[in-house]
Protein backbone atom coordinates (compact mmCIF):
# COMPACT_ATOMS: atom_id res chain seq x y z
CA UNK A 1 0.00 0.00 0.00
CA UNK A 2 1.53 3.28 -1.09
CA UNK A 3 1.35 6.46 0.98
CA UNK A 4 -1.27 7.85 -1.38
CA UNK A 5 -3.41 4.72 -0.90
CA UNK A 6 -3.13 5.21 2.84
CA UNK A 7 -4.14 8.85 2.44
CA UNK A 8 -7.14 7.84 0.34
CA UNK A 9 -8.17 5.43 3.11
CA UNK A 10 -7.70 8.17 5.73
CA UNK A 11 -9.83 10.60 3.69
CA UNK A 12 -12.33 7.87 2.81
CA UNK A 13 -13.57 4.99 4.94
CA UNK A 14 -11.56 5.94 8.04
CA UNK A 15 -12.90 9.48 8.03
CA UNK A 16 -16.45 8.27 7.39
CA UNK A 17 -16.36 5.97 10.40
CA UNK A 18 -14.68 8.53 12.63
CA UNK A 19 -17.24 11.20 11.70
CA UNK A 20 -20.17 8.84 12.20
CA UNK A 21 -18.89 7.73 15.61
CA UNK A 22 -18.27 11.35 16.53
CA UNK A 23 -21.72 12.60 15.53
CA UNK A 24 -23.55 9.60 16.99
CA UNK A 25 -21.42 9.79 20.15
CA UNK A 26 -22.06 13.49 20.71
CA UNK A 27 -25.84 13.14 20.27
CA UNK A 28 -25.87 10.08 22.50
CA UNK A 29 -23.95 11.85 25.26
CA UNK A 30 -26.15 14.93 25.06
CA UNK A 31 -29.24 12.73 25.41
CA UNK A 32 -27.63 10.82 28.24
CA UNK A 33 -26.72 13.92 30.21
CA UNK A 34 -29.81 16.02 29.71
CA UNK A 35 -32.40 13.30 29.89
CA UNK A 36 -31.37 12.49 33.45
CA UNK A 37 -33.25 15.58 34.55
CA UNK A 38 -33.24 17.17 37.98
CA UNK A 39 -35.66 17.02 40.84
CA UNK A 40 -38.01 19.96 40.93
CA UNK A 41 -36.74 22.69 43.24
CA UNK A 42 -39.62 23.32 45.60
CA UNK A 43 -37.92 26.20 47.43
CA UNK A 44 -38.64 29.77 46.46
CA UNK A 45 -35.86 31.29 44.39
CA UNK A 46 -33.72 33.69 46.42
CA UNK A 47 -32.98 36.11 43.56
CA UNK A 48 -35.58 36.92 40.98
CA UNK A 49 -33.90 38.76 38.08
CA UNK A 50 -33.16 36.22 35.39
CA UNK A 51 -30.01 36.21 33.25
CA UNK A 52 -27.63 34.82 35.83
CA UNK A 53 -27.17 31.65 33.78
CA UNK A 54 -26.26 33.54 30.62
CA UNK A 55 -23.97 35.91 32.53
CA UNK A 56 -22.11 32.99 34.04
CA UNK A 57 -21.48 31.58 30.57
CA UNK A 58 -19.35 34.65 29.90
CA UNK A 59 -18.01 35.56 33.34
CA UNK A 60 -16.51 32.10 33.84
CA UNK A 61 -14.31 32.80 30.82
CA UNK A 62 -12.47 35.38 32.92
CA UNK A 63 -10.47 34.51 36.03
CA UNK A 64 -12.00 35.44 39.41
CA UNK A 65 -10.18 38.22 41.22
CA UNK A 66 -6.69 37.18 42.33
CA UNK A 67 -6.74 33.86 40.49
CA UNK A 68 -4.69 35.02 37.52
CA UNK A 69 -1.82 35.87 39.86
CA UNK A 70 -2.20 32.64 41.75
CA UNK A 71 -2.50 30.34 38.69
CA UNK A 72 -0.94 32.25 35.78
CA UNK A 73 0.14 29.14 33.86
CA UNK A 74 -3.32 27.61 33.99
CA UNK A 75 -5.06 30.73 32.74
CA UNK A 76 -2.58 32.07 30.20
CA UNK A 77 -1.74 28.70 28.66
CA UNK A 78 -5.44 27.91 28.62
CA UNK A 79 -6.24 31.03 26.64
CA UNK A 80 -3.30 30.62 24.28
CA UNK A 81 -3.99 26.94 23.65
CA UNK A 82 -7.72 27.33 23.02
CA UNK A 83 -7.23 30.36 20.76
CA UNK A 84 -4.52 28.61 18.76
CA UNK A 85 -6.55 25.44 18.40
CA UNK A 86 -9.66 27.38 17.39
CA UNK A 87 -7.79 29.34 14.71
CA UNK A 88 -6.10 26.20 13.36
CA UNK A 89 -9.31 24.19 13.17
CA UNK A 90 -11.54 26.86 11.69
CA UNK A 91 -9.31 29.23 9.75
CA UNK A 92 -6.72 27.14 7.88
CA UNK A 93 -7.80 27.05 4.23
CA UNK A 94 -7.63 23.23 3.82
CA UNK A 95 -9.71 22.81 6.99
CA UNK A 96 -12.37 25.21 5.69
CA UNK A 97 -12.49 23.04 2.58
CA UNK A 98 -13.16 20.04 4.82
CA UNK A 99 -16.13 21.85 6.39
CA UNK A 100 -17.30 22.91 2.94
CA UNK A 101 -17.08 19.29 1.80
CA UNK A 102 -19.22 18.18 4.74
CA UNK A 103 -21.71 21.00 5.15
CA UNK A 104 -21.44 23.28 2.13
CA UNK A 105 -20.57 26.19 4.46
CA UNK A 106 -17.35 28.14 3.99
CA UNK A 107 -15.72 31.37 5.08
CA UNK A 108 -12.47 33.30 4.43
CA UNK A 109 -9.21 31.72 5.56
CA UNK A 110 -6.31 33.28 7.44
CA UNK A 111 -2.75 33.29 6.04
CA UNK A 112 -0.96 30.03 6.64
CA UNK A 113 1.95 31.73 8.44
CA UNK A 114 -0.46 33.11 11.04
CA UNK A 115 -2.03 29.71 11.62
CA UNK A 116 1.46 28.23 11.83
CA UNK A 117 2.37 30.67 14.61
CA UNK A 118 -0.92 29.97 16.41
CA UNK A 119 -0.24 26.24 16.29
CA UNK A 120 3.27 26.66 17.69
CA UNK A 121 1.85 28.81 20.50
CA UNK A 122 -0.86 26.22 21.18
CA UNK A 123 1.69 23.40 21.38
CA UNK A 124 3.95 25.37 23.71
CA UNK A 125 0.91 26.11 25.87
CA UNK A 126 0.01 22.41 25.95
CA UNK A 127 3.54 21.52 27.05
CA UNK A 128 3.41 24.21 29.75
CA UNK A 129 0.11 22.78 30.95
CA UNK A 130 1.55 19.30 31.16
CA UNK A 131 4.61 20.54 33.06
CA UNK A 132 2.38 22.50 35.39
CA UNK A 133 0.11 19.54 35.93
CA UNK A 134 3.03 17.30 36.83
CA UNK A 135 4.83 19.89 38.96
CA UNK A 136 1.84 20.79 41.09
CA UNK A 137 1.19 18.15 43.77
CA UNK A 138 -2.53 18.91 43.86
CA UNK A 139 -3.00 18.75 40.09
CA UNK A 140 -0.89 15.63 39.88
CA UNK A 141 -3.03 13.93 42.49
CA UNK A 142 -6.22 14.95 40.71
CA UNK A 143 -5.01 13.73 37.31
CA UNK A 144 -6.00 10.34 36.00
CA UNK A 145 -5.16 8.37 32.87
CA UNK A 146 -8.04 10.06 31.06
CA UNK A 147 -6.44 13.47 31.54
CA UNK A 148 -3.18 12.41 29.97
CA UNK A 149 -4.92 10.59 27.12
CA UNK A 150 -7.01 13.70 26.40
CA UNK A 151 -3.84 15.82 26.46
CA UNK A 152 -2.01 13.52 24.04
CA UNK A 153 -5.02 13.15 21.73
CA UNK A 154 -5.22 16.96 21.50
CA UNK A 155 -1.51 17.48 20.96
CA UNK A 156 -1.18 14.88 18.18
CA UNK A 157 -3.25 16.64 15.49
CA UNK A 158 -1.41 19.90 16.17
CA UNK A 159 1.98 18.23 16.10
CA UNK A 160 1.36 16.09 13.02
CA UNK A 161 -0.22 19.03 11.17
CA UNK A 162 2.79 21.18 11.98
CA UNK A 163 5.22 18.45 10.90
CA UNK A 164 3.31 17.84 7.67
CA UNK A 165 3.35 21.52 6.77
CA UNK A 166 7.07 21.84 7.50
CA UNK A 167 7.98 18.48 5.90
CA UNK A 168 9.49 17.09 9.08
CA UNK A 169 10.20 13.50 9.98
CA UNK A 170 8.19 11.72 7.25
CA UNK A 171 7.50 12.71 3.66
CA UNK A 172 4.46 14.93 3.21
CA UNK A 173 1.87 12.39 1.98
CA UNK A 174 2.54 10.03 4.89
CA UNK A 175 2.68 12.84 7.44
CA UNK A 176 -0.59 14.28 6.13
CA UNK A 177 -2.12 10.82 6.45
CA UNK A 178 -0.89 10.53 10.04
CA UNK A 179 -2.34 13.99 10.71
CA UNK A 180 -5.75 12.90 9.44
CA UNK A 181 -5.56 9.66 11.46
CA UNK A 182 -4.73 11.67 14.59
CA UNK A 183 -7.77 13.89 14.01
CA UNK A 184 -9.89 10.78 13.53
CA UNK A 185 -8.62 9.43 16.86
CA UNK A 186 -9.56 12.73 18.47
CA UNK A 187 -13.02 12.63 16.88
CA UNK A 188 -13.69 9.14 18.21
CA UNK A 189 -12.37 9.91 21.70
CA UNK A 190 -14.04 13.29 22.08
CA UNK A 191 -17.60 12.23 22.95
CA UNK A 192 -16.42 9.69 25.53
CA UNK A 193 -13.70 11.60 27.38
CA UNK A 194 -13.43 14.91 29.20
CA UNK A 195 -12.89 16.48 25.77
CA UNK A 196 -16.69 16.44 25.57
CA UNK A 197 -16.52 19.78 27.40
CA UNK A 198 -16.36 21.29 23.90
CA UNK A 199 -20.11 20.59 23.79
CA UNK A 200 -21.14 20.57 27.46
CA UNK A 201 -19.14 23.58 28.65
CA UNK A 202 -21.57 26.42 28.02
CA UNK A 203 -24.63 24.47 29.01
CA UNK A 204 -23.11 23.45 32.34
CA UNK A 205 -21.99 27.03 32.96
CA UNK A 206 -25.51 28.22 32.33
CA UNK A 207 -26.91 25.54 34.66
CA UNK A 208 -24.52 26.48 37.48
CA UNK A 209 -25.21 30.18 37.08
CA UNK A 210 -28.93 29.64 37.15
CA UNK A 211 -28.76 27.29 40.10
CA UNK A 212 -26.64 29.71 42.12
CA UNK A 213 -29.14 32.47 41.43
CA UNK A 214 -31.80 30.38 43.05
CA UNK A 215 -29.51 29.92 46.06
CA UNK A 216 -28.95 33.66 46.25
CA UNK A 217 -25.37 33.82 44.95
CA UNK A 218 -26.12 35.16 41.50
CA UNK A 219 -23.14 36.14 39.39
Amino acid at each position, binding site marked *: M*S*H*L*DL*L*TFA*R*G*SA*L*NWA*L*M*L*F*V*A*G*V*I*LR*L*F*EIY*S*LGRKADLAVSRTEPPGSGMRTVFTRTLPPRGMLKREPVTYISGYVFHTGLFLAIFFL*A*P*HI*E*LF*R*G*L*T*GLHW*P*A*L*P*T*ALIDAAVVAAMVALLAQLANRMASPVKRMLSGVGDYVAWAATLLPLLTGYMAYH*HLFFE*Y*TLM*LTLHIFSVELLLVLLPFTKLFHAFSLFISRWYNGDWFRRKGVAS
Partner: protein
Amino acid sequence: MNQSDQPDNLPGTVGEGLEQRGVSRREFLQFCTTMTAMLALPPSMASVMADAIAKARRQSVIWLSFQECTGCTESITRSHSPTLENLIFDLISLDYHHTLQAASGEAAEHARALAMKDNEGKYLLIVDGSIPMGNPGYSTIAGISNYDMLVETARGAAAIVAVGTCATYGGIPKADPNPTGAVSVGDIVKDKPIINVPGCPPIPVVMTGVLAHFLTFGSIPELDELGRPKSFYGETIHDRCYRRPFYDQGKFAETFDDEAARQGWCLFKLGCKGPVTYNACATAKWNDGTSFPIQSGHGCIGCSEPNFWDAGPLYKALSMPVSASSFMLAGAAAAGAAAGVAITWHNRSIKAAAKTAHEQVTVQDLMREDK
Protein backbone atom coordinates in the same frame (compact mmCIF):
# COMPACT_ATOMS: atom_id res chain seq x y z
CA MET B 1 19.20 -3.83 -35.14
CA ASN B 2 22.24 -5.95 -34.38
CA GLN B 3 25.25 -3.68 -34.11
CA SER B 4 27.64 -6.17 -35.68
CA ASP B 5 25.36 -6.34 -38.72
CA GLN B 6 25.23 -2.57 -39.13
CA PRO B 7 26.05 -1.29 -42.59
CA ASP B 8 29.15 0.87 -42.74
CA ASN B 9 27.21 4.08 -43.08
CA LEU B 10 25.61 3.61 -39.66
CA PRO B 11 27.65 4.93 -36.75
CA GLY B 12 29.16 2.51 -34.24
CA THR B 13 29.30 4.99 -31.39
CA VAL B 14 27.11 7.88 -30.40
CA GLY B 15 29.99 10.29 -31.01
CA GLU B 16 30.36 9.11 -34.58
CA GLY B 17 26.67 9.46 -35.09
CA LEU B 18 26.71 13.02 -33.82
CA GLU B 19 29.62 13.85 -36.06
CA GLN B 20 27.83 12.41 -39.08
CA ARG B 21 24.85 14.61 -38.35
CA GLY B 22 26.92 17.71 -37.97
CA VAL B 23 26.21 18.15 -34.26
CA SER B 24 28.93 20.39 -32.90
CA ARG B 25 30.85 19.67 -29.71
CA ARG B 26 29.37 22.85 -28.23
CA GLU B 27 25.79 21.71 -28.90
CA PHE B 28 26.53 18.29 -27.49
CA LEU B 29 28.06 19.77 -24.32
CA GLN B 30 25.05 22.02 -23.97
CA PHE B 31 22.82 18.95 -24.07
CA CYS B 32 25.00 17.16 -21.49
CA THR B 33 24.97 20.21 -19.20
CA THR B 34 21.17 20.28 -19.33
CA MET B 35 21.03 16.59 -18.58
CA THR B 36 23.43 16.77 -15.63
CA ALA B 37 21.38 19.63 -14.19
CA MET B 38 18.17 17.64 -14.68
CA LEU B 39 19.73 14.60 -13.01
CA ALA B 40 20.93 16.76 -10.12
CA LEU B 41 24.55 15.81 -10.82
CA PRO B 42 27.49 18.14 -10.15
CA PRO B 43 28.21 20.51 -13.09
CA SER B 44 31.62 18.87 -13.55
CA MET B 45 29.81 15.70 -14.62
CA ALA B 46 28.73 17.34 -17.89
CA SER B 47 32.06 16.68 -19.58
CA VAL B 48 32.24 13.19 -18.07
CA MET B 49 28.79 12.52 -19.50
CA ALA B 50 29.82 13.96 -22.86
CA ASP B 51 32.86 11.68 -23.03
CA ALA B 52 30.96 8.63 -21.87
CA ILE B 53 28.05 9.11 -24.25
CA ALA B 54 30.30 9.96 -27.21
CA LYS B 55 32.27 6.75 -26.71
CA ALA B 56 29.23 4.59 -25.97
CA ARG B 57 28.11 2.14 -28.56
CA ARG B 58 24.51 2.76 -29.45
CA GLN B 59 22.47 1.15 -26.71
CA SER B 60 20.14 -1.56 -27.89
CA VAL B 61 16.63 -0.81 -26.68
CA ILE B 62 13.55 -2.98 -26.91
CA TRP B 63 10.32 -1.15 -26.23
CA LEU B 64 7.25 -3.19 -25.34
CA SER B 65 3.79 -1.64 -25.27
CA PHE B 66 1.08 -3.48 -23.37
CA GLN B 67 -2.22 -2.13 -22.01
CA GLU B 68 -1.56 1.51 -22.81
CA CYS B 69 -2.87 4.41 -24.86
CA THR B 70 0.39 5.26 -26.70
CA GLY B 71 0.46 8.52 -24.75
CA CYS B 72 3.93 7.69 -23.42
CA THR B 73 5.25 7.24 -26.95
CA GLU B 74 3.48 10.43 -27.97
CA SER B 75 5.21 12.16 -25.09
CA ILE B 76 8.71 10.92 -25.90
CA THR B 77 8.32 11.86 -29.55
CA ARG B 78 7.91 15.40 -28.22
CA SER B 79 11.08 15.12 -26.21
CA HIS B 80 12.74 18.44 -26.98
CA SER B 81 16.24 17.72 -25.85
CA PRO B 82 17.34 15.48 -27.32
CA THR B 83 14.77 15.16 -30.06
CA LEU B 84 13.40 11.73 -30.78
CA GLU B 85 15.43 11.71 -33.92
CA ASN B 86 18.60 12.18 -31.93
CA LEU B 87 17.45 9.76 -29.32
CA ILE B 88 16.71 6.98 -31.75
CA PHE B 89 19.64 7.42 -34.09
CA ASP B 90 22.33 8.86 -31.88
CA LEU B 91 21.82 7.67 -28.37
CA ILE B 92 20.01 4.40 -28.76
CA SER B 93 19.33 1.69 -31.23
CA LEU B 94 15.59 1.24 -30.97
CA ASP B 95 15.41 -2.34 -32.15
CA TYR B 96 11.75 -2.96 -31.43
CA HIS B 97 8.83 -0.61 -30.91
CA HIS B 98 5.68 -1.82 -32.60
CA THR B 99 4.21 1.66 -32.97
CA LEU B 100 7.28 3.35 -34.42
CA GLN B 101 8.96 0.58 -36.36
CA ALA B 102 8.30 0.13 -40.05
CA ALA B 103 8.35 -3.64 -39.89
CA SER B 104 5.26 -5.55 -38.88
CA GLY B 105 4.16 -9.11 -38.21
CA GLU B 106 6.86 -11.77 -38.37
CA ALA B 107 9.58 -9.29 -39.39
CA ALA B 108 8.90 -7.17 -36.32
CA GLU B 109 9.03 -10.14 -33.97
CA HIS B 110 12.18 -11.31 -35.71
CA ALA B 111 13.82 -7.95 -34.95
CA ARG B 112 13.01 -8.40 -31.27
CA ALA B 113 14.33 -11.95 -31.19
CA LEU B 114 17.53 -10.87 -32.96
CA ALA B 115 18.13 -7.92 -30.65
CA MET B 116 17.61 -10.16 -27.64
CA LYS B 117 20.05 -12.74 -28.97
CA ASP B 118 22.77 -10.33 -30.08
CA ASN B 119 22.65 -8.15 -26.97
CA GLU B 120 21.97 -10.84 -24.39
CA GLY B 121 22.36 -9.33 -20.91
CA LYS B 122 23.07 -5.86 -22.33
CA TYR B 123 19.93 -4.46 -23.88
CA LEU B 124 17.64 -2.02 -22.17
CA LEU B 125 13.99 -2.97 -21.95
CA ILE B 126 11.46 -0.17 -21.92
CA VAL B 127 7.88 -1.06 -21.10
CA ASP B 128 4.77 1.08 -21.24
CA GLY B 129 1.35 -0.23 -20.34
CA SER B 130 0.12 -2.60 -17.66
CA ILE B 131 -0.04 -6.37 -17.93
CA PRO B 132 -3.44 -8.10 -17.75
CA MET B 133 -3.45 -11.12 -15.45
CA GLY B 134 -7.20 -11.78 -15.59
CA ASN B 135 -7.07 -13.41 -19.01
CA PRO B 136 -4.02 -13.60 -21.32
CA GLY B 137 -6.30 -12.88 -24.26
CA TYR B 138 -7.09 -9.36 -23.05
CA SER B 139 -3.92 -8.06 -24.67
CA THR B 140 -1.65 -9.92 -27.05
CA ILE B 141 1.05 -9.02 -29.57
CA ALA B 142 1.65 -11.42 -32.47
CA GLY B 143 -0.38 -13.97 -30.55
CA ILE B 144 1.89 -13.74 -27.52
CA SER B 145 0.34 -12.66 -24.22
CA ASN B 146 1.76 -9.54 -22.58
CA TYR B 147 2.86 -11.59 -19.58
CA ASP B 148 4.79 -14.12 -21.68
CA MET B 149 6.42 -11.43 -23.80
CA LEU B 150 7.50 -9.45 -20.73
CA VAL B 151 8.95 -12.46 -18.93
CA GLU B 152 10.74 -13.64 -22.05
CA THR B 153 12.19 -10.23 -22.95
CA ALA B 154 13.08 -9.27 -19.39
CA ARG B 155 15.21 -12.39 -18.97
CA GLY B 156 18.16 -11.04 -21.00
CA ALA B 157 17.76 -7.34 -20.21
CA ALA B 158 20.43 -5.34 -18.39
CA ALA B 159 17.75 -3.18 -16.82
CA ILE B 160 14.11 -2.32 -17.31
CA VAL B 161 12.63 1.14 -17.58
CA ALA B 162 8.91 1.16 -16.83
CA VAL B 163 7.56 4.31 -18.42
CA GLY B 164 4.16 5.70 -17.63
CA THR B 165 1.91 5.09 -14.67
CA CYS B 166 0.39 1.95 -16.28
CA ALA B 167 3.75 0.16 -16.45
CA THR B 168 4.98 1.49 -13.11
CA TYR B 169 1.87 1.09 -10.94
CA GLY B 170 -0.92 -0.34 -13.10
CA GLY B 171 -2.36 3.06 -13.99
CA ILE B 172 -5.84 3.54 -15.38
CA PRO B 173 -6.29 -0.13 -16.45
CA LYS B 174 -5.79 -1.05 -12.78
CA ALA B 175 -8.38 1.49 -11.58
CA ASP B 176 -11.23 0.02 -9.60
CA PRO B 177 -12.72 -2.48 -10.49
CA ASN B 178 -9.63 -3.45 -12.54
CA PRO B 179 -11.53 -5.55 -15.11
CA THR B 180 -8.42 -7.05 -16.71
CA GLY B 181 -6.54 -7.81 -13.50
CA ALA B 182 -3.88 -5.29 -14.57
CA VAL B 183 -0.54 -5.30 -12.76
CA SER B 184 2.68 -3.31 -13.09
CA VAL B 185 6.03 -4.48 -14.47
CA GLY B 186 7.43 -4.56 -10.93
CA ASP B 187 4.66 -6.93 -9.87
CA ILE B 188 5.95 -9.52 -12.34
CA VAL B 189 9.69 -8.99 -12.78
CA LYS B 190 11.56 -9.32 -9.50
CA ASP B 191 15.11 -10.18 -10.53
CA LYS B 192 16.08 -7.18 -12.68
CA PRO B 193 16.77 -3.56 -11.81
CA ILE B 194 13.62 -1.58 -12.66
CA ILE B 195 13.53 2.19 -13.04
CA ASN B 196 10.02 3.52 -12.65
CA VAL B 197 9.29 6.65 -14.67
CA PRO B 198 5.64 7.28 -13.79
CA GLY B 199 3.37 9.94 -15.23
CA CYS B 200 0.41 9.90 -17.51
CA PRO B 201 2.41 10.46 -19.61
CA PRO B 202 5.86 11.02 -18.08
CA ILE B 203 7.71 14.23 -18.86
CA PRO B 204 9.77 13.60 -22.02
CA VAL B 205 12.97 14.99 -20.57
CA VAL B 206 12.61 12.65 -17.58
CA MET B 207 12.53 9.67 -19.91
CA THR B 208 15.52 10.86 -21.92
CA GLY B 209 17.35 11.88 -18.73
CA VAL B 210 17.06 8.35 -17.39
CA LEU B 211 18.40 6.96 -20.67
CA ALA B 212 21.28 9.47 -20.66
CA HIS B 213 22.16 8.43 -17.11
CA PHE B 214 22.21 4.77 -18.10
CA LEU B 215 24.42 5.48 -21.09
CA THR B 216 26.83 7.61 -19.06
CA PHE B 217 27.26 5.48 -15.99
CA GLY B 218 26.06 2.09 -17.21
CA SER B 219 23.97 1.94 -14.09
CA ILE B 220 20.56 3.07 -12.94
CA PRO B 221 20.12 6.39 -11.13
CA GLU B 222 19.39 6.60 -7.40
CA LEU B 223 15.79 5.58 -6.81
CA ASP B 224 13.24 6.29 -4.08
CA GLU B 225 11.17 3.62 -2.33
CA LEU B 226 8.72 3.59 -5.27
CA GLY B 227 11.56 2.92 -7.72
CA ARG B 228 11.56 6.46 -9.16
CA PRO B 229 14.76 8.42 -9.93
CA LYS B 230 15.19 10.77 -6.98
CA SER B 231 16.55 13.54 -9.16
CA PHE B 232 13.19 13.91 -10.90
CA TYR B 233 10.77 12.67 -8.27
CA GLY B 234 12.42 14.01 -5.12
CA GLU B 235 10.04 16.91 -4.51
CA THR B 236 6.35 17.54 -4.78
CA ILE B 237 4.79 19.68 -7.49
CA HIS B 238 3.39 21.91 -4.72
CA ASP B 239 6.81 22.64 -3.22
CA ARG B 240 8.23 23.73 -6.57
CA CYS B 241 5.07 25.40 -7.88
CA TYR B 242 5.30 29.05 -8.86
CA ARG B 243 1.80 29.49 -7.36
CA ARG B 244 2.97 28.26 -3.94
CA PRO B 245 3.25 31.79 -2.43
CA PHE B 246 -0.50 32.22 -3.01
CA TYR B 247 -1.18 29.06 -1.03
CA ASP B 248 0.86 30.41 1.85
CA GLN B 249 -0.98 33.73 1.69
CA GLY B 250 -4.37 32.00 1.64
CA LYS B 251 -5.17 33.24 -1.88
CA PHE B 252 -7.14 30.66 -3.83
CA ALA B 253 -9.13 30.43 -7.05
CA GLU B 254 -12.69 29.35 -6.22
CA THR B 255 -13.68 28.52 -9.79
CA PHE B 256 -11.76 28.05 -13.01
CA ASP B 257 -12.88 31.39 -14.42
CA ASP B 258 -13.04 33.78 -11.48
CA GLU B 259 -10.83 36.81 -10.99
CA ALA B 260 -8.54 34.84 -8.66
CA ALA B 261 -8.00 32.21 -11.36
CA ARG B 262 -7.15 34.95 -13.84
CA GLN B 263 -4.69 36.37 -11.32
CA GLY B 264 -3.01 32.97 -11.21
CA TRP B 265 -3.81 32.20 -7.57
CA CYS B 266 -3.44 28.75 -6.03
CA LEU B 267 -5.67 25.95 -7.39
CA PHE B 268 -5.76 23.90 -4.17
CA LYS B 269 -9.49 24.45 -3.65
CA LEU B 270 -10.17 23.27 -7.21
CA GLY B 271 -8.69 19.89 -6.40
CA CYS B 272 -4.99 20.34 -7.20
CA LYS B 273 -3.07 17.24 -6.03
CA GLY B 274 0.30 19.00 -6.23
CA PRO B 275 0.95 18.67 -2.47
CA VAL B 276 1.05 14.85 -2.65
CA THR B 277 2.47 14.39 -6.15
CA TYR B 278 6.17 13.81 -6.66
CA ASN B 279 7.26 14.84 -10.14
CA ALA B 280 9.33 17.39 -12.00
CA CYS B 281 6.49 19.09 -13.93
CA ALA B 282 6.88 22.41 -12.09
CA THR B 283 10.60 22.60 -12.92
CA ALA B 284 11.26 20.61 -16.12
CA LYS B 285 7.88 21.56 -17.62
CA TRP B 286 6.53 20.42 -20.97
CA ASN B 287 6.77 21.40 -24.63
CA ASP B 288 10.32 22.61 -24.57
CA GLY B 289 9.94 24.08 -21.08
CA THR B 290 6.91 26.13 -22.09
CA SER B 291 4.36 25.26 -19.44
CA PHE B 292 2.82 22.60 -17.23
CA PRO B 293 -0.80 21.86 -16.22
CA ILE B 294 -0.91 24.28 -13.28
CA GLN B 295 0.60 27.05 -15.36
CA SER B 296 -2.11 26.53 -17.95
CA GLY B 297 -4.78 26.91 -15.27
CA HIS B 298 -5.66 23.36 -14.25
CA GLY B 299 -4.72 21.68 -10.99
CA CYS B 300 -2.38 18.70 -10.86
CA ILE B 301 -4.30 15.40 -10.96
CA GLY B 302 -1.44 13.45 -9.39
CA CYS B 303 -0.98 11.22 -12.44
CA SER B 304 2.50 10.00 -11.44
CA GLU B 305 1.34 8.55 -8.11
CA PRO B 306 0.26 4.93 -7.64
CA ASN B 307 -3.53 4.45 -7.88
CA PHE B 308 -4.09 8.16 -8.53
CA TRP B 309 -7.26 7.30 -10.40
CA ASP B 310 -8.85 5.89 -7.23
CA ALA B 311 -7.47 8.54 -4.87
CA GLY B 312 -10.66 10.56 -4.57
CA PRO B 313 -12.41 12.96 -6.95
CA LEU B 314 -10.11 15.01 -9.17
CA TYR B 315 -11.92 18.28 -8.47
CA LYS B 316 -12.27 17.96 -4.70
CA ALA B 317 -9.67 19.71 -2.55
CA LEU B 318 -7.17 17.34 -1.02
CA SER B 319 -8.48 18.08 2.47
CA MET B 320 -12.06 17.30 1.50
CA PRO B 321 -13.50 13.91 2.43
CA VAL B 322 -13.45 11.36 -0.37
CA SER B 323 -16.98 10.09 0.23
CA ALA B 324 -18.42 11.49 3.49
CA SER B 325 -21.71 13.33 3.00
CA SER B 326 -24.16 15.33 5.07
CA PHE B 327 -26.67 12.52 4.43
CA MET B 328 -24.28 10.09 6.10
CA LEU B 329 -23.82 12.44 9.05
CA ALA B 330 -27.59 12.87 9.39
CA GLY B 331 -27.87 9.08 9.53
CA ALA B 332 -25.23 8.96 12.26
CA ALA B 333 -27.08 11.69 14.17
CA ALA B 334 -30.31 9.70 13.91
CA ALA B 335 -28.52 6.57 15.15
CA GLY B 336 -27.03 8.58 18.02
CA ALA B 337 -30.47 9.98 18.90
CA ALA B 338 -32.00 6.48 18.83
CA ALA B 339 -29.23 5.20 21.10
CA GLY B 340 -29.80 8.27 23.30
CA VAL B 341 -33.50 7.47 23.61
CA ALA B 342 -32.64 3.89 24.52
CA ILE B 343 -30.17 4.97 27.18
CA THR B 344 -32.65 7.52 28.52
CA TRP B 345 -35.29 4.82 28.84
CA HIS B 346 -32.75 2.57 30.57
CA ASN B 347 -31.64 5.27 33.03
CA ARG B 348 -35.18 6.31 33.80
CA SER B 349 -36.26 2.74 34.42
CA ILE B 350 -33.38 2.35 36.91
CA LYS B 351 -34.53 5.54 38.58
CA ALA B 352 -38.15 4.40 38.63
CA ALA B 353 -37.16 1.00 40.04
CA ALA B 354 -35.16 2.71 42.77
CA LYS B 355 -38.12 4.92 43.58
CA THR B 356 -40.45 1.93 43.77
CA ALA B 357 -38.04 0.01 45.96
CA HIS B 358 -37.65 2.98 48.26
CA GLU B 359 -39.10 2.32 51.70
CA GLN B 360 -40.11 5.19 53.82
CA VAL B 361 -38.57 5.23 57.26
CA THR B 362 -40.50 6.86 60.04
CA VAL B 363 -39.23 8.25 63.33
CA GLN B 364 -40.90 5.34 65.09
CA ASP B 365 -38.87 2.89 62.95
CA LEU B 366 -35.66 4.58 63.93
CA MET B 367 -36.57 4.69 67.60
CA ARG B 368 -37.38 0.99 67.51
CA GLU B 369 -33.96 0.26 66.03
CA ASP B 370 -32.31 2.26 68.78
CA LYS B 371 -33.86 0.03 71.39
